[in-house]
């Protein structure tokens, strides 16, 4: 009878499981879903126009403002456009890079290449974006200097700069899943395709691409969602251009309910995106 509690626990496996999961689930529910829920509810509140106090009176004014003011439609479309461009650019750069790492490089240099891809993640986000600010500076930046012999100028600060900066920041998140996907792909498939007379591009299109598609989806979830929520890059190299995150930042201390309303947009976009991804079946084969 010494070990009453352990015996009891042994006889009640369900309680054991509940005790084990209590801490992580409560964290998930309280800190994660709770915060998200509060955000959603706040979006329906309003403020005292003078003191800025949140007034808990249910209304749809914020959503009305957001949908009727063309400025917010523009910023939503702009943000989606930027996130899609960043994802596309990351895919374009990541596939050849990952292919080289997984299939062409010697096993020894593979490890070095993976480490090299990861090194930018060791440096602070801010340092990297400020570096891009210096490089993209019109007239004096290194980008201007490099491109001037070709008669091209630095894009300066604005939409293109944001896309360049974010593509640079999130590229490792695209390379790594594709690399992992390619590594699992047997070389014999590529050889077989070649033996049957397929050109390199045809092999890529009909053999490689379908097999790494789940990896592409995994990478795009990173690049797309990270770009969708970013506001610091836009602040530093975006010139006068703003993204959804900037609107939230601009409004959260003055008009919290409106900031919450805007913040529901990326949540909705991501939900739709994940739903579309689910329909392709890519998530099941990850």
């Amino acid at each position, binding site marked *: 009878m010494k070990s009453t509690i352990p015996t009891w626990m042994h006889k009640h496996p*369900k309680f054991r499981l509940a005790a084990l999961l209590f801490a992580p*689930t409560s964290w*998930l*529910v*309280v800190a994660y*879903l*709770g915060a998200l*829920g*509060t955000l959603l*509810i706040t979006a329906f509140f309003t*403020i*005292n*126009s*003078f*003191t*800025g*106090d*949140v*007034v*808990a*009176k249910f209304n749809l004014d914020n959503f009305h*403002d957001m949908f009727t*003011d*063309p*400025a*917010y439609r*523009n*910023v939503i479309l702009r943000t989606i456009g930027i996130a899609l461009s960043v994802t596309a650019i990351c895919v374009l750069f990541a596939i050849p890079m990952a292919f080289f790492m997984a299939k062409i490089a010697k096993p020894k240099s593979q490890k070095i290449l993976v480490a090299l891809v990861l090194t930018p993640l060791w440096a602070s986000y801010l340092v990297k974006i400020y570096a891009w600010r210096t490089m993209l*500076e*019109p*007239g*004096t930046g290194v980008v201007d200097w490099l491109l001037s012999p070709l008669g091209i100028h630095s894009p*300066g*600060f604005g939409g293109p700069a944001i896309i360049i900066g974010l593509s640079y920041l999130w590229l490792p998140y695209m390379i790594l899943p594709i690399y992992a996907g390619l590594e699992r792909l047997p070389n014999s498939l590529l050889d077989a395709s070649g033996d049957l007379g397929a050109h390199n591009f045809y092999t890529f299109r009909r053999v490689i691409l379908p097999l790494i598609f789940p990896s592409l989806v995994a990478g795009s979830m990173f690049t797309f969602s990270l770009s969708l929520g970013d506001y610091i890059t836009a*602040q*530093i190299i975006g*010139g*006068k251009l*703003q993204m959804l995150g*900037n*609107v939230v930042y*601009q*409004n959260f*201390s*003055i*008009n919290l309910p*409106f900031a919450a309303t805007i913040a529901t947009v990326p949540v909705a976009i991501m939900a739709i995106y994940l739903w579309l991804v689910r329909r392709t079946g890519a998530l099941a084969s990850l």
Partner: protein
Amino acid sequence: MRSKRLFSQIAVASAVALILAGCSSNNGASDSALPKVDMMKTLGTGEGEVNVVAWGGYVENGSNDPAVDWVSDFEKSTGCKVNVKVGATSDEMVTLMKTGDYDVVSASGDASLRLIYGGDVAPVNTDLIPNYADIFKGLKNQQWNSVEGVAYGVPHGRGANLLAYRTDIVKPAPTSWGAVFDAASPYAGKITAYDSPIYIADAALYLMKTQPDLGITYPYALDQKQFDAAIALLNIQKPLIGEYWGDYLKHVASLKSGGTVLGTTWQVNINLAKSEGVPVEGIKPVEGSTGWSDTWMISSKAKHPNCGYMWMDHIASPKANAGVAEWFGEAPSNAKACDLTSDKNFCETFHAADDAYWTDVYYWNTPTEACLDGRADATCVPYSEWVKAWSSLRNA
């Protein structure tokens, strides 16, 4: 499968319960009547600490620069330990003061009235603050730091928003704000503006001087028609802007690189840029200027009111006031501070005692529906609408 569903149901139910619990606390809808808050009668002994919300550079204890320290002496002589929380914007400061965790705040004019009418700050018994007597008269009992003759704080310092231009690029030198609103400007793409709703007042000030038909008399009291005109002017300006600035260090870097050659700025930015060898000059244009006049206020929920009063007295003292003014780059509020600055020309550079200089400086104020210029027959656009319009302008 069954237990999975049950589990998720419990999860959702508890999340909803939590949210509702969180909501019920902030139902206090306040209107625009002045809340009755009692003034402190007598000064007691210090509580051992004081929690301060301030602009960066206002409360220095030597940790940034060992020579810049007006906190340590105060802590030693009063026994009040100073805990400082730096606010980045007026709006953030208002939010912080609403928590009730802070005792004093250095509020700009676009925050002070919101704090007063929100019941977040208390009227100040100036008899308990000996240094109040030496504050420049032009700063006391103004629209942004008093209501009906009752002082709600101790004036701290003031500055004007200037027109900065690169002397090597912008020729001839500008004399008017028109330079940043000219659709045909040769400097398009290299002009800057301050990234805050309060910048709408800069456009209103320009219209006030150039389009008298609009009848603007005070840039913070705009009826709908005047407000729309200001927004229209800012829309004309937008294609000229390279970057809007909020971070003053980034702004200085931009002036240095030539990414910005013209636009609104603060004196401290000009000084910083000049110290880095940038050929830049800042002027107060012919139309006058917007500006700021900060006020130390005490929370109505202060847990350390005695230390709070001691701090307000200390920061208004000639030595501390001179220290802050010189470190931050603004005009001190205490007349005796001018003798104690390390640069003997400091007060002259910043026009501390030059009342004529400040007559056409319109300090930041919080626009309200009741027009601040006293018009009874008009309704003005309140600050919340300024915020919406600015957000809309910036995102269009």
